[in-house]
């Protein structure tokens, strides 16, 4: 066995570390840009119901640039290891990055400025990158036998990805042609599929793998994953049909079923957390707990919106709570734990002295990010409710500062990784 490949042989499911890290690095860059866009368009946030401009660009910088980016990077590395199935060639993973990252940048530039060639070109590239990533993940899932609960959520996420991509392309074209019968209804269905369908199901599925592993708790029973997957599918079908058909009560029923799925999800997590071996919860839980609170709160606001309650407030508040409140908080919490974990896993697998997660993690910027992110969520949500632009602006500025703190953490992680690799070259270990 050659040095540098101690556990990275033919049976290994480990991709080269730069493959997932490139996606995480892009997410770290898009994250402050998203808050900056929200800051630039703060005056349009209260009462926001859609339309081109910095707010829509900021929203997509989070959903596509941060959330989906993290999801793809994590899925590429963690899914093949967890379910013991090959993902696909490394070049295809690289191609997905090269299609997706410039695509997101171009699309968001188009959304911010209204420049149609950027909008269409960016949408095309983004969808191509997403679909390639989806194909690779689907290839990994086909034939897998373990983790049935997680696979249900993963398949649901991929089906949602297909739906949201089609709706997203229609919406992008509609900005110029205006041929859709109801742009807002299609945008609502697109948002449900993107937030709850694609990202939500990936978040649930990853939670079933990662949370028990990080807290050293018992596995979430497969039956729970199957039940939450079934309820989530029903909730999505009802909510999307309700949004497209303009039937608020149907969309609200979808939200209620979604709350049921969330309840089951939380009950299972509570059991796993209660029986954990690692008694002291790590710092990333200061983001996970608020994210879990904001998930049902956002759903409740969404139900109120579907039932027609104060759309000028509930529409932007629902979108903000779902995307920035729940998903962004959850994803950045998971990311700050996964990045040093992957570095440690790779340095262990290549032989030589492994890098320790505890030594790779700079806690001060993480604490700063958590505080600023929390303040930002509070101020922007309040600004939307009381229609206060200065409050939204202050919140967005806080979010931007928090995102820069998280970027500083990522840069520090990179520096510590490089220093570790220079000081501890891999050596050949026994392999028979």
């Amino acid at each position: 066995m050659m040095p540098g490949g101690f556990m990275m042989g033919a049976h290994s499911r480990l991709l080269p570390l730069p493959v997932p890290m490139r996606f995480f690095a892009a997410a770290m860059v898009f994250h402050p840009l998203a808050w900056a866009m929200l800051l630039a368009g703060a005056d349009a946030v209260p009462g926001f119901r859609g339309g081109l401009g910095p707010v829509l660009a900021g929203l997509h910088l989070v959903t596509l640039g941060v959330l989906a980016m993290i999801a793809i990077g994590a899925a590429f590395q963690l899914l093949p290891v967890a379910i013991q199935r090959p993902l696909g060639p490394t070049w295809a993973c690289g191609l997905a990055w090269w299609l997706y990252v410039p695509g997101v940048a171009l699309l968001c530039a188009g959304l911010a400025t209204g420049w149609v060639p950027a909008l269409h070109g960016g949408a095309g590239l983004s969808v191509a990158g997403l679909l390639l990533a989806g194909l690779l993940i689907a290839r990994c899932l086909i034939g897998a036998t373990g983790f049935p609960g997680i696979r249900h959520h993963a398949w649901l996420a991929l089906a949602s990805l297909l739906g949201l991509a089609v709706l997203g392309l229609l919406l992008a074209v509609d900005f110029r042609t205006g041929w859709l019968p109801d742009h807002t209804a299609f945008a609502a269905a697109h948002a449900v599929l993107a937030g709850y369908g694609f990202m939500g199901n990936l978040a649930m599925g990853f939670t079933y793998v990662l949370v028990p592993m990080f807290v050293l708790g018992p596995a979430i029973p497969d039956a729970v994953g199957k039940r939450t997957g079934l309820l989530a599918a029903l909730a999505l079908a009802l909510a999307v049909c309700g949004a497209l058909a303009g039937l608020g009560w149907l969309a609200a029923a979808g939200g209620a079923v979604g709350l049921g799925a969330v309840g089951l999800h939380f009950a299972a997590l509570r059991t796993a957390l209660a029986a954990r071996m690692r008694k002291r919860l790590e710092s990333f839980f200061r983001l996970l707990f608020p994210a879990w609170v904001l998930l049902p709160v956002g759903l409740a606001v969404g139900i109120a919106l579907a039932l027609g309650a104060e759309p000028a407030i509930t529409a932007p508040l629902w979108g903000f709570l779902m995307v920035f409140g729940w998903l962004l908080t959850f994803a950045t919490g998971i990311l700050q734990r996964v990045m040093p974990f992957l570095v440690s896993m790779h340095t262990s697998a290549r032989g030589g002295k492994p890098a320790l997660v505890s030594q790779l993690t700079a806690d001060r910027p993480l604490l700063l990010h958590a505080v600023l992110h929390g303040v930002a969520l509070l101020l922007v949500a309040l600004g939307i409710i009381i229609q206060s632009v200065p409050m939204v602006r202050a919140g967005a500025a806080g979010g931007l500062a928090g995102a820069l703190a998280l970027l500083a953490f990522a840069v520090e992680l990179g520096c510590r990784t490089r220093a570790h690799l220079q000081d501890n070259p891999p050596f050949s270990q026994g392999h028979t």
Partner: protein
Amino acid sequence: MDIKDKTTGPPAWLALALDTQPLDVRPVLAGGEDPFTLVMGHAEGIGAGQAMVVDAPFNPSPLRKVLAGRGFSSYARKLAEGHWRVFFLHDGAADWERQAEVVVMPEGAFTWDEDDGIHIDVRKLPPPQPMLAVLRLLDGLDGGRAVIVHHERMPHFLLPELAERGWRVARLAEEFANVRLWLERAP
């Protein structure tokens, strides 16, 4: 964890089993299949006072415990690297515990003691139970003994936790659905 050291010699009944044709399960394991059903089916045909011999790539202590429950005493001998011969005598398991003392952990993993260290078999356990079992064993260990993990996959997610605890994978044997890792404290 209470795992006793044993330095006992071969049992007196071994002579009864030496001429028995071995059942070699190594090709079955190499083919990615679990030979448990094959061995148990073979054991069904062994009458009282008769012997059975199994060739395996490692000392199959969990199997020996299961067969002890069916009345088989056992004795294992290492013939070469990756080749163990286990002798079974259907005698009511009067002598079953010989070098087959197995402890079942809360996660369902088997642990037993051998000359080269403490073995833990976490195969067939759903994730993350294998990781929990290994870490629970390591957390309860004193001294410098090695731990040999019998796994069915490369436990990549375990590696950062090992590193945090000051353990490392010193050696690795990897076959299809049969991975063994020799863990030792990092220098």
